[in-house]
């Protein structure tokens, strides 16, 4: 597997982590009602979304530049 392929795998796992953090924060919001965890959940979901957008951008860029190794 090339660095490009491994990078996409890594971004996929990072996205799952960010999404999981969001779920974890939501569970804590339900249990404690603390506002800090609500902010954490929102940030985590935005981070997950940002990583998905970045992943697609990266794939298209590599394809456009013809970097396949």
């Amino acid at each position, binding site marked *: 597997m090339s660095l490009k392929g491994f990078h996409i795998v890594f971004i996929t796992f990072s996205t799952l982590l960010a999404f999981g953090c969001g779920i974890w924060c939501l569970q804590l919001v339900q249990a404690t009602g603390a506002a800090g965890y609500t902010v954490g959940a929102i940030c985590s979901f935005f981070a997950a979304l940002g990583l998905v957008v*970045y992943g697609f951008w990266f794939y298209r860029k590599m394809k456009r530049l013809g970097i396949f190794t």
Partner: protein
Amino acid sequence: MDIPYTTTARPDTGLWNAKIGIWLFLASEVMLFGGLFSAYVFLRLDALPGYWPHGLLNVPVGTMNTAILIGSSVTVVLAWAALKMRQFNRYKIYMGITILCGIIFLAVKLAYEWPDKFQHFGAYIRQDRLEKYEEYLGNHHMLERGLEPRVEITGHLHNHDALHDPNIHEYEVQLDQVNAAPTDPASDRPHFWPLPKSQKIAVIEKADVEHAEMFVPKHNTFFATYFTITGLHGLHVLGGVIVFTYFWLPIGANLYKRNPEHLANRVEVAGLFWHFVDLVWIFVFPLFYLL
């Protein structure tokens, strides 16, 4: 003497040699970290109720370090892409940012997170003396709520000599919030957002203590696995930073002038290693900080 297959594929494998080499190396690394993660899982599953701590690590700082490592993976791949496009100046910038990210990660770990733990104290109370410290443990309240009992009192140790001096018979501990107000519903769950220490001081007799120590690896299995895995991971980060710095220095520029594809392949191999190290952290962070 020329080393063969540094830029061209070897006919029998279809790959240049360093790529085969790094994947074999990463396979051995998977086994190394896989074994450690397995040990963590079994130690945790086998822990007695109340003996596996939660919420002792600084989640905001851990989150920041996670973001730094993810960012460094982005910049290392951009550095490699810049080399493939023969944009050396851009490569230098991206690689410089990657090195900086690695250094910041290590600095946070070694100058803040670990020392912060080394200054924290915990005393496991003997099972037959738990009742005596009910005002700090709140186990009646925990039992009513159906939660795991508390067996440890944590905080800042005021008399450090007590750790080594057998003539001192008690520990004076400035309590963490969870032990200062153990029946407060806010203490039912671990505090993942760090709270300041309370002003409450508890005196714990040594005779009532099963085991007491600063938060060092021998304190409990949680910290033993935490320091082992994050320490080994930190060594890998350090190794990556050293290799990237080597490529970033003039030696990389000289190689680029001689054979740019060779430098690009070297950066790709180092980048694969870096991604693996970052991927390990993607598992370390939720296991130790969140769950």
